[in-house]
């Protein structure tokens, strides 16, 4: 058995499995999206071409869900990067006391089930039973965390609580892998503090930052559990995210054809955003 044969044999099981669990469902889903497929009348569907797609593109709720999701993703990932980077800088310093204990505990939220996080915060922020509103009330501050104006932002904060650790993990690893030489050279030239971060750390860390932000954004697009645990898309459509909207249309309204078409449009939206982001960050990189 020569090596050429061997290396392909090794990937055959993976290829077969992915064809069964992924490629086939994706193809099936495309077929469903071109039919008037309803969960209540399986077996009676007709081919309707791209009608599902046109209907969705004209649907206000779909665009509301997309814009809610984009606002959520951008705000959450921006805050997570900002906080994660600050924490990474502090934990990277070898002289910071207890840094290993801090790191182990600060990373913990990213491992726990999002439905538990959603319910813990629903409880914690509840206006009668929750610790946070009661404390704020004593200080004379009244915030309804789940009001029409606040709800989406509250979900952002919950996401920041759970996923800043992921950003921290990657950025900290990035910092630890950097060579010390450019820092020594810059220090000799008299650079320190913010200048060191701005002109040495950030440019050197760019590839890791880019990867961390893109991975986190793709992940944030899947936000669902907090919505399910707390708001169910409300008040009104204030927190209807796309993943929740597809769930609603497909499994609460039984319109599977439309839900499949939406899923395909979601893939396109995500791909376009990733490409734009990638190019913007690449250009930034060239300008530095």
């Amino acid at each position: 058995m020569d090596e050429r044969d061997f290396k392909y044999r090794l990937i055959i099981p993976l290829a077969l499995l992915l064809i069964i669990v992924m490629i086939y469902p994706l193809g099936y889903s495309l077929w469903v999206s071109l039919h008037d497929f309803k969960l209540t009348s399986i077996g009676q569907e007709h081919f309707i071409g791209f009608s599902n797609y046109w209907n969705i593109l004209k649907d206000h709720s779909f665009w509301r869900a997309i814009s809610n999701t984009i606002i959520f993703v951008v705000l959450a990932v921006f805050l997570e990067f900002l906080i994660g980077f600050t924490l990474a800088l502090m934990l990277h310093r070898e002289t910071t006391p207890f840094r290993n204990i801090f790191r182990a505990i600060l990373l913990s939220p990213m491992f726990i089930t999002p439905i538990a996080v959603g319910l813990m915060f629903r409880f914690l922020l509840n206006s009668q039973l929750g610790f946070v509103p009661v404390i704020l009330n004593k200080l004379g501050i009244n915030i309804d965390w789940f009001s029409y104006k606040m709800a989406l932002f509250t979900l952002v904060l919950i996401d920041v609580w759970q996923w800043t650790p992921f950003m921290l993990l990657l950025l900290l690893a990035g910092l630890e892998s950097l060579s010390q030489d450019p820092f020594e050279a810059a220090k000799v030239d008299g650079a320190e503090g913010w200048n060191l971060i701005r002109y040495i750390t950030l440019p050197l860390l760019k590839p890791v930052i880019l990867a961390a932000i893109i991975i986190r954004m793709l992940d944030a697009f899947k936000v669902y559990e907090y919505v399910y645990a707390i708001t169910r898309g409300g008040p009104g459509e204030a927190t209807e995210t796309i993943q929740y909207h597809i769930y609603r249309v497909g499994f609460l309204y039984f319109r599977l054809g439309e839900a499949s078409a939406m899923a395909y449009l979601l893939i396109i939206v995500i791909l376009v955003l990733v490409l734009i982001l990638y190019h913007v960050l690449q250009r930034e990189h060239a300008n530095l």
Partner: protein
Amino acid sequence: MRKRIYIDIYSFFALLIFLIIIIFPYFWTLISSLKTAADFLHPLKFNFTPTLSHWANVINSQIPHQGINSILVGIITVVIALTVGAPAAYSFSRFNTGGEKTRFLILLSQMLPPAVLIVPIFLLMYSLKLLDTIWAVIFAHLTFITPLVTWFLIGFFDDVPRELEEAAKVDGCTPWQAFLWIVLPTIRPGLAAASLFGFILSWNDLYYALLLTGGKSKTLPVGIAGYWTFRGVEMGQMSSAIILAIIPVIIASFFIQKYLVRGLGGGAIKG
């Protein structure tokens, strides 16, 4: 020198504040699992008489059964994912099979939103009569855990020196034997971390489990989600169930944190 000490002190207190923000929700949930219903009306009261009644109720509810379902789903998914993922990861690492593009595709496929796959998987499971069984969830979890485990192991195979296989070949091993008996045992920590991380992701999933299971086949996250719905609220029991679901995972996370970067970087970031 003095300046360094100031920064140390600032860092310490800043980190302490974040530590409190992270720990408080856990602490609050634990406290709540010990409060009587009447004490819930006083969120600031911490010197209450603790009760174990919520814990007793949870132990006697469906939660332990749902926990076992979650464990079964996680173990079966991870075993299948490792069996097909490890040889492929070895091939990607050693022979760069399919090039950078294939690696990237593996990473991307794991990022696919569940909303994209849920409709076809639901219909497929419906026609196979597997809806409301744990096999439906296992099928769905394989869609993201298989690419994840594969991606995760690439970095660990990259670290194994090639001389190991050369030596095995001289000793008369076939390439397959060299992989199975020489290379695989050297990345045991990577295999353990990949399994544990894959298991955690399966354990944590709500989206697929909610739509594909019901009744006896519900997993733990689905059970937990049922405690606070439009139909009713069981704060105390919900808190106990949450603690049960998150404690094992947090403990497991302490063991894999060290290996996580190596794995998630897929060979891109040196951990």
